């Protein structure tokens, strides 16, 4: 029994310590964003890494998600003779939920793990210590650009996922299942309001913050050589995905 309490205590201590560490890192990263000189080159480099280089994976994700949504919703709606609602179902699902969430999860897998690995390697090979010795703050140089890139690029990627998802749904709904093209587009435009898209983009920005902060925190605090780097990458992906899904529920309950 005592061992059980000890384990729970250690586990709770680790959670509190990680949460505190992440909050402190976020505070420092935001503070450094406003202290010149800005690391503009680093910020653009990270925006390219998080945004441009994730484009292919989110296009594929969006296209197939939209397509499968059209297929599933058609099968369900056909029973009520409401096939014309396939378009809005796909578009609303993509804009409000699937676009931001799937983008967040896919970018966590691709860019979040890479961030944690890169920073973890820099930690164990003393490159982060080298920054300190050259009077360069590693949070300003490494963390702030990554967090900024995550927050700025996730909404852009989510828009792409939304759009490609709608296109995927259109191809399946209109070209394969025979829904009238005018009805499909008209109904979609009628039902989807700008706020649906806007709220989805806010979610995406929050997910961008979560995935980049979690990855930077774990990468930055890596210990124990190559195994430690692998461990940091795994933790950043698992915790990043879980936090994205948890925060999605709370954001949705506040927004809708």
């Amino acid at each position, binding site marked *: 029994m005592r061992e059980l309490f000890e384990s729970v205590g250690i586990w709770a201590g680790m959670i509190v310590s990680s949460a505190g560490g992440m909050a402190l890192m976020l505070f420092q990263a935001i503070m450094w964003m406003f202290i010149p000189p800005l690391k503009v080159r680093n910020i653009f480099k990270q925006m390219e890494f998080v945004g441009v280089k994730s484009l292919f994976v989110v296009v594929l994700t969006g296209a197939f998600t939209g397509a499968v949504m059209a297929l599933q919703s058609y099968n369900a709606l056909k029973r009520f003779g409401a096939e014309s609602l396939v378009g809005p179902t796909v578009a609303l699902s993509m804009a409000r939920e699937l676009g931001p969430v799937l983008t967040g999860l896919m970018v966590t897998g691709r860019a979040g793990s890479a961030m944690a690995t890169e920073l973890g390697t820099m930690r164990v090979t003393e490159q982060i210590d*080298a920054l300190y010795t050259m009077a360069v703050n590693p949070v300003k140089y490494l963390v702030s650009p990554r967090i900024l890139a995550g927050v700025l690029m996730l909404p852009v990627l989510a828009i792409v996922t939304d759009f490609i998802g709608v296109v995927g749904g259109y191809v399946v709904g209109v070209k394969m299942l025979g829904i009238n093209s005018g009805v499909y587009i008209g109904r979609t435009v009628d039902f989807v309001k700008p706020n649906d898209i806007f709220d989805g983009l806010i979610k995406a920005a929050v997910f961008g913050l979560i995935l980049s902060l979690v990855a930077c925190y774990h990468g930055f605090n890596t210990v124990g050589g190559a195994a430690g780097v692998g461990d940091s990458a795994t933790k950043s992906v698992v915790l990043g995905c879980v936090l994205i899904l948890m925060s999605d529920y709370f954001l949705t309950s506040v927004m809708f």
Partner: protein
Amino acid sequence: MIKITDLKKSFNSKKVLDGVNLDIEKGKITVIIGRSGEGKSVLIKHIIGLLKPDSGQILLDGQDITKMTERELNEVRRRFGMLFQGAALFDSLTVGENVAFPLREHAGMPEADLKEVIKEKLRLVGLKNVENMMPADLSGGMKKRVGLARAVAMDPEIVLFDEPTTGLDPIMSDNVATLILDTQRDLKTTYIVITHDISLTYKIADKVAMLHEGKIVEQGDVEYVKSSVNPILRQFVEGRAEGPIKVL
């Protein structure tokens, strides 16, 4: 120039530094020797403010480094250069960008002048036409040289060397030793070297200090070390398994 007084540091319950006292003289090469795991790297990280001690002082020209804020430390760190054990080159940057890194961050030098300085610093460590190579393409010895070029790029007053010959073959080790001597003569800089390489120590040291069980147990010039009868120092420099130093 640097006066270390009664410096203590423990990690969890393990005492690593247990009252280190040491004076580092300006413009000289001080070599700190000791077994692996004796806390040499911990000591050098205290000198540049990467670690805070549990107690004790490190005075740099009368200012206590251990009491400084991060902002004050950043000012002090501009007076330092450091060559890390694995060189710690930024692997996403080219060799030229690595050497230019501190200059770009702090010197505000025009790009045209920067290119000349990079070439000059690389020439100083015996390298030519490597500016566009990536660190991954360099041998261990070349990495150390580039690391040294980066460490002296800002013409620091003090350069710290963390095991400069570890992982190098004997010929390259001797080459690095010569490089350390030559650059120190050229730049008249204070060098602090931590190592367990005795031939390097004999070749470059103006002063040798031995760290053992968290304390400086012996210090003096090379001749003193060679003639010392201190059994701990004798066992270490002669590389014997038998003696007062216990092999675990």
